[in-house]
């Protein structure tokens, strides 16, 4: 018998993602992004994102079906990001998913966005090791999670206490006159810079901080330190060494991220780290994580960049797991939950 054909809808931020999977086989991953509409604001504007999701929904559904070579009536189940994310943006995806569920008379699964970021790696690297340590880093989240079972048991170990990692990239990029979103531009510019030229602070790494926030992150102080440094340079009339600032900033972020991820894995006795979210595309993060993990005998898994950023395939594959485990589907009054806790995987 064929594995179930599952369609996943993701609209938690600025990407309208529709993914189609059969079991762990990816058939389509269509994404429409409104990122360019947000660029001039230096961040995602919720109302602009929500409007874009409404306009992109039907064309993206059609494109995904065409790519997968299916028609909607072939679909066995619908999965959708129920949260966390931007409330108005989530609501467009959730309403679309419910409409499909009613029209096709197929079950609906409202799933957690963060768990979906973890589940997606199965499309590339097969079944998840259990347990594994997931580090999710993007413009919206920076979390360390212990994953014993991606459908039932995800335990938060730490998270950012202020800005998300990707948010810090965006803000520093803006400061340096680089375009939004900042991540790829900082990554590129930093390759020409000297990462030890400037010593930027590593948030929550002092002994006192480690007592209370061992696995938490803070990037707000770093962002401020970069801003002060750049202002001082400008005030003294000297040119700002953009590449050095980018490299030193990036190093401060990935140093803390990798150090804490490996510390968390070691303290939990976990031998596999999975990195997801948009910042996982950062080349220096990938390199440093692998180098430091290898020294501790820990394996690192990172999905390809297209599966790290927000997409519908990650939602579809988590939905497919829910179907395979016979989980009870979500009710039609499923809410969009902008602050859905990470240990609530299916609503």
């Amino acid at each position, binding site marked *: 018998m064929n594995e179930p054909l599952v369609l996943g809808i993701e609209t938690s931020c600025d990407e309208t993602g529709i993914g189609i999977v059969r079991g762990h086989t990816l058939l389509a991953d269509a994404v429409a992004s409104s990122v360019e509409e947000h660029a001039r604001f230096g*961040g995602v504007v919720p109302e602009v994102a929500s409007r874009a999701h409404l306009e992109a929904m039907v064309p993206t559904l059609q494109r995904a079906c065409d790519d997968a070579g299916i028609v909607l009536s072939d679909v066995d189940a619908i999965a959708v990001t129920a949260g966390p994310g931007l409330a108005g943006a989530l609501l467009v995806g959730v309403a679309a998913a419910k409409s499909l569920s009613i029209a096709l008379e197929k079950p609906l699964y409202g799933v957690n966005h963060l768990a979906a970021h973890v589940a997606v790696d199965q499309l590339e690297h097969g079944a998840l090791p259990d347990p594994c340590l997931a580090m999710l880093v993007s413009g919206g989240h920076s979390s360390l999670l212990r994953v014993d079972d991606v459908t039932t048991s995800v335990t938060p170990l730490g998270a950012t206490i202020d800005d998300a990692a990707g948010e810090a990239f965006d803000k520093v990029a803006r400061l340096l006159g680089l375009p939004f979103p900042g991540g790829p531009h900082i990554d590129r510019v930093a390759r020409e810079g000297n990462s030890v030229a400037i010593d930027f602070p590593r948030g929550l790494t002092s002994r006192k901080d480690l007592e209370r926030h061992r696995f938490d992150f803070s990037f707000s102080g770093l962002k401020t330190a970069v801003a002060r440094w750049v202002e001082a340079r400008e005030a003294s009339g000297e040119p700002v060494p953009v590449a050095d600032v980018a490299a030193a900033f990036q190093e401060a972020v990935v140093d803390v991220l990798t150090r804490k991820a490996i510390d968390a894995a070691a303290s939990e006795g976990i031998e596999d780290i999975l990195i997801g979210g948009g910042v996982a595309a950062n080349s220096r993060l990938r390199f440093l994580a692998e180098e430091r993990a290898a020294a501790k005998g820990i394996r690192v898994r990172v999905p390809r960049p297209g599966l790290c950023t927000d997409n519908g395939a990650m939602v579809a594959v988590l939905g497919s797991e829910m179907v395979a485990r016979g989980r009870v589907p979500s009710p*039609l009054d499923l809410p969009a939950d902008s602050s859905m806790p990470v240990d609530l995987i299916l609503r």
Partner: protein
Amino acid sequence: MLLAFDTATPHVTVALHDGDRVVAEYVSTEAMKHGEMLAPGIADVLAQVGAASRDVTAVAVGVGPGPFTGLRVGLVTARTMALALEIPVYGVCTLDILAAEAMDAGHDEFQIATDARRKEVYLASYASRQRVSGPEVVKPAVAATDSLVIGRGALLYPEAFPNAAGPEHPDAAVLCDVVVRERFELLDPDPLYLRRPDAVAAQTAKKVS
């Protein structure tokens, strides 16, 4: 069967029409719960008459103007359902639905006003069974009039609209009638926002632990 709904006001209203008459209705008066209540409402009207989704041959939706978040729930639901069932979808200006009900009550010349929040109303004028101006978004003081104004937006501002009357909110049963008898122009299912988005980036809106 025609499935009709409107989510451009605080209410969710759903109706099912079999070609001759409205056979099932659902209304949720829980304010601003469109995302939760619309889908159960659709399931409810289908269940009331034992219909399957395949029995729906067209969808009608109120396209606003109205508060954006709720409005989009109706529009994305209608568009997606039309795609999945391969059926047509008709849009109707939400103020026209209220106007049709006002005409059925015997009114000829009047305005419709719904609540646009931010101390403004969505307003349109009707005469001789047609919309003659609007919809637009205006401050009540600017649109103040002694003549008949119908809808929640009129009742909210008695100083500007002393001659205000109900119904306050649109009724999907009337939306069915508007579509079946083409009483007003049938539109594409595109939202009537009438306002630009507030262009403020979400600084910490998606902070997640």
